């Protein structure tokens, strides 16, 4: 398998570090080249890292509830930076409170995310999605 590069990190003022460390471990084990920006990542940092590393996907985590505020405009900024069409995933606890997932998904898709994942999504699920979207491998 050719090594695809992805950028991961936890957006905004969010410091939830555990899931991020596990995703780094799991994505690397799964054969991706992972650029891990850790926690408290700004939109600009994701974009810079993606350009620098020639990444094909940005995997945004948001756990602390401000995901909706933090993610606004990321797609537009990517476009402006020349990252048109780059794969954008978001997952974690991306909104405040327990909300029906369909509504949440709709709102984040409208913001330009290609895939949106609910609370507690297993790394395997994300890996399968990445393999499908980046390598065309359907499970």
């Amino acid at each position: 398998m050719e090594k695809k590069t992805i950028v991961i990190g936890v957006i905004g003022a969010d410091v939830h570090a555990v899931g991020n460390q596990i995703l780094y471990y799991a994505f690397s084990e799964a054969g991706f080249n992972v650029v891990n920006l850790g926690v408290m990542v700004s939109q600009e940092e994701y974009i810079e890292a993606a350009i620098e590393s020639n990444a094909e996907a940005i995997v945004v985590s948001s756990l602390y509830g401000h995901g909706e505020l933090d993610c606004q405009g990321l797609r537009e900024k990517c476009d402006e930076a020349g990252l048109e069409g780059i794969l954008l995933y978001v997952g974690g606890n991306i909104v405040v409170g327990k909300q029906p997932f369909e509504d949440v998904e709709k709102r984040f898709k409208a913001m330009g995310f290609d895939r949106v994942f609910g609370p507690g999504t297993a790394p395997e699920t994300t890996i399968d999605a990445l393999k499908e979207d980046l390598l065309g491998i359907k499970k």
Partner: protein
Amino acid sequence: MELTNKRYNDEEFFREREEVLKTWHTGHEVDLSEAVEYQRGIKTEKRFCTKLGKAIKEKKTLVQPRAGVALVDMHVKLLQYLENEGEADLLPTTIDSYTRLNRYEDAEHGIKESKKHGNSMLNGFPAVNHGVKGCRIVTESVKSPVQVRHGTPDARLLAETAYAGGFTSFEGGGISYNIPYAKNVPLVETIKKWQYVDRLTGYYEEQGISLNREPFGPLTGTLVPPCVSNAVGIIEALLAAEQGVKDITLGYGQCGNLVQDVAAIESLRYMSEKYLKRFGYEGYILSTVLHQWMGGFPQDEAQAFGVICWGSAVAALAKATKVIVKTPHEAMGVPTKEANAAGLRATKQVITMLADQALPQDSVLLGEIDLINRETEQILERTLELGDGDIAIGTVRAFEAGVIDVPFAPSRFNAGKMMPARDHDGAVRFLNVGNLPFDDSIKTFHKKKLDERGKAEGRGVNFQMVVDDIYAISKGRLVGRPHK
């Protein structure tokens, strides 16, 4: 920045105060002498220290939720609900993440969005933005004492606002609200800023207003070995005591093994007394708090109740002075008030059912207490050594050296060389002690314990165990066993 564990110089403190109050426009609402008089007017049964003191005497465990929303009226309703429907003994005001980073502009935006959407777009109550007036509305609307709970590296303005706003307890500390809550903030900076908070608390104390301070015990909430969090708690207690704080609650996040958890609370009580005495502090009141499981929760609400209730049982059997309560929504998001009250009622049921019982003090328990005592002592002694006797300086150096090391912390001022994992009985042990300054007998003990587990599971002792342990509770277990 120069740091020592010395009582703030008054002049310096008041000079710094002026700067602090200018960092957001609500700062001008804080008038210290008016605030002292305001606090003096708060009825004694509405004060944290009184209620905790009574609980210590009666060997009762009080229950306290976490809760905070963006707008004052919403927040008042929430607290009233938790008090009436949840039977909370102590109330919280959880602060939003922007305020925690002093991003008051972002918080203001969040307040506006919340008003627009009619529901909270912030994950907590932006106390600074609402100012002293907003805070007083909150603390006056309820019958119980209210505490500010947050995770703010620089909480000086928040503390000023909170105390003037009628809160009688303030959570946090220079280590515990930095290492788990920040990425780039030097420890020397946060310790200094929290000395300010403690000094402010001490100032009120000198005016006859006792305010409670509570270091944040659970740190990252994820497989933190008791000796690590206890050492941090004791250091913050020493730092606070030096600034004149007299009412301190030390915390511990449930790890999951009954004996280890009860031992951790016992050891925390014993060692903190010992160190406070050793450094000559007097006239303080120490209480303890157990946090129900702080790591990843199961998504299913019934299973979440299982986790909540087991945490309650441990708090009761350990005779913690209070317990911080999770909710059945924990894995999903900020809870509704109903879910929050349900967590409280389940907790209260278990706590009061077990009010008359304790874990018998037998040799297994005593052995575990002794282990935690020795580990904590070795960490603290090396820390003092590194600081040439000064605990503040020592702490900064200890973190640099990995002598104190918090697992899974986001801060780059944390070494991250130590790695914990559960043993065969579910107690948290060291898979890799990193640079923690343990003697050989302790190191051998932990190695033996993990080898036992590895053998029982037929696999090597490595990071996969840790990964499995992190997921375990959310998947219904304590020890992350290998998949079959």
